[in-house]
C-alpha cells in the first residue's frame, strides 16, 4: 500500500520522481522515511504506458515490428529477436544460418551499447560526471555501425520472421573488427577510472544486497541474478539462436551488492565482444531470409513461449493464436518489471543516498516496464 502523509507521525512521506534524474524515465517512488533512512519504497509505474500488448492483438505480426523497438530503447534488438523467434517457433520456420549469425552479432553489439549507457548513467547517479563522456564516446561507434546496417540508432525494427531486413556489408564487418580492438583497449581505462576509485567503492560495496532466494521469489533475472552468484542466462540455460555454437562465459559474482552487479555488466561487455568476434569469423555465406515464409502468417491455434536474454535479463514472449494472422494474445514479460518489483524489500532500512545507488545498479529502463 502506498503510504499517506500523517503529521502525527515522526516519519516523512516523500515523492521521488516522477521527474528525477536518477529514475531514468518517468518513474515515481513513494518513500516513507525515518530521517535519512528509507522504511518503505513503493514504485509507481505506468506513466509511459502505451499498451503494446493491445496493439499486438489488433495487428498482424509484421505490423508489430515497429513496436518491438519502442519498449526498451537501450537494447531494442533483443525485443525484436524474441518476437521473431516466438513466431518462428509457432510456425516452424527455419532461418538461414547467416541470418541467425547476423541477429547475434547485432544483438550483442546492442547489448554492449546498452551496458555502456548504463555505465555512464549509473556513475552519473553516484555523482561522477566524467565516465559518461567516455562511455558515450564508445557507444557512438556502435550506434553508427548499427545505423549503417539497420537504418536506425535506437528504435530498431531490423529482424523479420524468417531472417533479417538486409545483409551485412564489408564496411560493417571491418568497422566492427576495428571497434572490437578499440573497445578491448578501453576497459583498462574504465577500471582505472572507476572500478578502483575509492569513493565509488564506498558507495557500492555492501549496498543493496540481494539474496539468491529473493531472486527466485521475485523472478529477477539478468545481471541482477548473476550479481547474486546465480549463473542464470537464457543464452546458456535454454540456448536459442546460434548461442550453443559460440564459446563464451557467464560472469557471476556472489556478493549480491551493487558492486557485484557493476562487475557483472563490465565482464559481460568483454564476453559480448568475444561472441561478436567469433560470429564474424564464422559468418556463413548465403541468404539472409528464409525462402518459404508465407505472406500471411497464420498463427496457431496454440500457444508458444519464447525467452531470450535481453540486456537487462530474461525477456519472455507468450503468444497465443487462434488460426488467424493476428495474435489472439501477445504478452511481453520485460526483465526490468520483475527486477524493479523487489525494490520495496531491498530498500527498507537503507539510506536515501544508497537507494539511488541501488536503483542505478538495477539498470531500469522505464518504457519497457510500462510498455
Amino acid at each position, binding site marked *: 500500500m502506498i503510504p499517506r502523509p500523517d503529521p502525527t507521525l515522526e516519519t516523512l512521506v516523500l515523492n521521488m520522481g516522477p521527474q528525477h534524474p536518477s529514475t531514468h524515465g518517468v518513474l515515481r517512488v513513494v518513500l516513507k522515511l525515518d530521517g535519512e533512512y528509507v522504511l518503505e519504497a513503493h514504485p509507481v509505474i505506468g506513466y509511459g504506458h502505451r499498451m503494446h500488448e493491445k496493439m499486438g492483438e489488433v495487428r498482424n505480426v509484421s505490423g508489430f515490428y515497429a513496436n518491438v523497438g519502442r519498449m526498451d530503447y537501450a537494447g531494442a534488438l533483443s525485443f525484436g529477436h524474441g518476437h521473431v523467434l516466438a513466431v518462428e517457433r509457432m510456425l516452424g520456420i527455419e532461418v538461414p544460418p547467416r541470418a541467425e549469425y547476423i541477429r547475434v552479432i547485432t544483438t550483442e553489439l546492442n547489448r554492449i551499447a546498452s551496458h555502456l549507457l548504463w555505465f555512464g548513467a549509473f556513475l552519473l547517479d553516484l555523482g561522477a560526471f566524467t565516465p559518461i563522456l567516455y562511455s558515450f564516446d564508445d557507444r557512438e561507434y556502435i550506434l553508427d555501425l548499427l545505423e549503417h546496417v539497420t537504418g536506425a540508432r535506437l528504435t530498431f525494427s531490423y529482424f523479420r520472421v524468417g531472417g533479417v531486413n538486409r545483409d551485412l556489408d564489408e564496411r560493417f564487418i571491418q568497422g566492427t573488427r576495428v571497434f572490437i580492438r578499440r573497445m578491448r583497449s578501453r576497459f583498462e581505462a574504465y577500471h582505472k577510472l572507476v572500478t578502483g576509485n575509492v569513493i565509488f567503492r564506498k558507495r557500492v560495496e555492501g549496498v543493496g544486497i540481494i539474496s539468491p532466494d529473493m531472486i*527466485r521469489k521475485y523472478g529477477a533475472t539478468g545481471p541482477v541474478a548473476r550479481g547474486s552468484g546465480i549463473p*542464470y542466462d537464457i543464452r546458456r540455460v535454454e540456448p536459442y539462436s546460434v548461442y550453443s555454437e559460440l564459446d563464451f562465459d557467464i560472469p557471476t559474482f556472489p556478493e549480491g551488492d551493487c558492486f557485484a552487479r557493476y562487475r557483472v555488466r563490465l565482464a559481460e561487455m568483454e564476453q559480448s565482444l568475444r561472441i561478436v568476434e567469433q560470429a564474424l569469423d564464422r559468418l556463413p555465406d548465403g541468404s539472409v531470409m528464409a525462402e518459404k515464409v508465407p505472406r500471411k502468417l497464420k498463427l496457431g491455434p496454440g500457444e508458444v513461449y519464447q525467452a531470450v536474454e535481453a540486456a537487462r535479463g530474461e525477456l*519472455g514472449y507468450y503468444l497465443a493464436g487462434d488460426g488467424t494472422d493476428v495474435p489472439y494474445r501477445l504478452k511481453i514479460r520485460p526483465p526490468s518489471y520483475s527486477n524493479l518489483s523487489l525494490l520495496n524489500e531491498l530498500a527498507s532500512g537503507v539510506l536515501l543516498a544508497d537507494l539511488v545507488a541501488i536503483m542505478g545498479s538495477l539498470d531500469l529502463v522505464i518504457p519497457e516496464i510500462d510498455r
Partner: protein
Amino acid sequence: MTLEEILQVLETTGVDAAPADHPTKGVHVEAWVPTERLREVAQALRDREFLIEDVIGVDAAPEMMVVYHFHRLEGGCRVRLRVRTDRESPRVPTIQDIFPGASWHEREQHDFYGVEFEGHPDLSPLILPEDAGDLRPLRKNEKKLKSLDDIVPPPAHQGEAS
C-alpha cells in the same frame, strides 16, 4: 531435478501434468490446475526452488484462463500452469504471499481483465491510471471473443478437473 521428478511433484499435489514439446511450445510441462489447488501447486514449486516468470490473463469463452509460467535457475524445466475461471466474475486465489514477485503480475492482470486475485492485499491500478475504473482494456468484445478450445487445442484439455 529432472522432468520426471517435476511431473511426480505435480502429481503428488493431485494435478494431471503432461510433458510438452519444448522445441515447438517453449515449455517443458503443462498442467491444468483446479482453482482450489493453485496455491498448493505454487507452494510445491516454491519449495523446489522455482522462479516465477509471469502471470498472464487470456480472455476466452465460455471461461477465461489465467496462465502462470515458472522456471528453474539451472534451466531445462519451464512449467506452465493454466487455471480456468468464470468470465463474468473471474476469481483466482493469489499466490503473491508464496511468490512476492507475482504481486505486480496479478495487479497487472487485474488492471487489464478485472481478475480478482482473492487474498491480494492491494489490487489498486498499477499500470493503468488511478481513475481507470472498469476499463479492462484487454477484454475481448463479442465479435473478437474465441472459444478456449480454439486457443488451447482440445488434446490439452484431457485430464482436466471439472
